[in-house]
């Protein structure tokens, strides 16, 4: 009886989340779920959609300037972007700050960030399962599916392992040549320093 009550409460809680938002939120095991698309502004005012990067492996990192653990990961992301950029890795930082954009830009510059930083919104946070815990990262394969999620500060090796997992998956219906970064739509999206 006790187990039944817990089951009903737990299931009800999950179903309530689904009903409130119309689609399953990114809670629990999110692997295999298509990453929600978004349209966010970069620090210099360009618009970026996740779908712009279809065919690439994406590391989506939610962070903030006031988040100490986020600062630890950033130099690792810079290295990983250099190391795997030519293999098709794109790192996107989503700043969840209330700070003014120039302050975020200055911080990113001081950290040597070599990947696009986007200005986060409540909407994108909600769509990614109410990101309240920073840093939170999603690892998205070339086909737009989530292959991993990390909450809180992870070790560099664990992050790199997730990156490799995202890079390893081919795009559905495309051969390897088609997924080459040289044939992607780089011209339309912010440049990434290699």
């Amino acid at each position, binding site marked *: 009886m006790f*187990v*039944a009550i*817990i*089951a009903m*409460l*737990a*299931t009800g*809680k*999950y179903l309530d989340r689904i009903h409130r938002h119309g689609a399953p939120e990114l*809670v*629990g095991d999110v692997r295999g779920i298509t990453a929600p698309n978004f349209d966010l502004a970069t620090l210099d005012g360009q618009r970026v959609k996740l779908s712009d990067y279809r065919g690439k492996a994406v590391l989506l990192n939610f962070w*903030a*300037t*006031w*988040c*100490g*653990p*986020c*600062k*630890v990961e950033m130099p690792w992301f810079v290295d990983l972007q250099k190391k795997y950029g030519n293999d098709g890795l794109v790192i996107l930082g989503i700043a*969840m700050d*209330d700070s003014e954009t120039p*302050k975020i830009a200055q*911080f990113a510059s001081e950290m040597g960030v070599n990947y696009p930083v986007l200005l986060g919104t409540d909407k994108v946070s909600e769509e990614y*399962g*109410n*990101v*309240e*815990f*920073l*840093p*939170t990262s999603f690892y998205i394969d070339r086909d737009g599916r989530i292959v991993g999620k990390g*909450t*809180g*500060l992870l070790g560099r090796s664990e992050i790199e392992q997730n990156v490799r997992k995202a890079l390893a998956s081919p795009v559905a219906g495309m051969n390897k040549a088609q997924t080459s970064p040289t044939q992607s739509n780089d011209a339309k999206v912010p440049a990434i320093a290699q």
Partner: protein
Amino acid sequence: MIRVLCSLLLAFALVGLALSQEPGTRVPSVTMAPVGKIQVRAGSTANVEMDFRIGSEFHINSNKPHSELLIPTTLKLNATDALPVVTVKYPVGQDMSFPFAPNEKLSVYSGDFTITAVVKVAAKATTGNYPVSGELRFQACDRSACYPPRSIPVKFEVTVAGR
């Protein structure tokens, strides 16, 4: 049949519990203890001590963090003409290092801390009870992650006695 049903229910329960305990659903708690009776005469001042408790495993920035990027803990009280707030005194933060920045000292509060507000009752204030409300804003982290800034309501009551 009953065994199958029980197994299914157990599986549902475990999945549900796993979902509800996913990292990122924990909320750092800061709570305020009720403030005792404050009685003061018109025209004089009173120190109002507010005791707060931070949930274990969490810390919040002090009122004077060592970096301007960090969000300080602040108390805002809605003052009235009859009961203006003269000043708010914050405790000095503890300088602590954390695993995510072992070489850096952060000025933080953890466990219990007390903020003192000095209120001055106007000389012309009539006797009676004066509720004061406001909010404490803080930004919490644990050993490996941080949470967005949050606010909790703060309230107490000052009783103004005759001269």
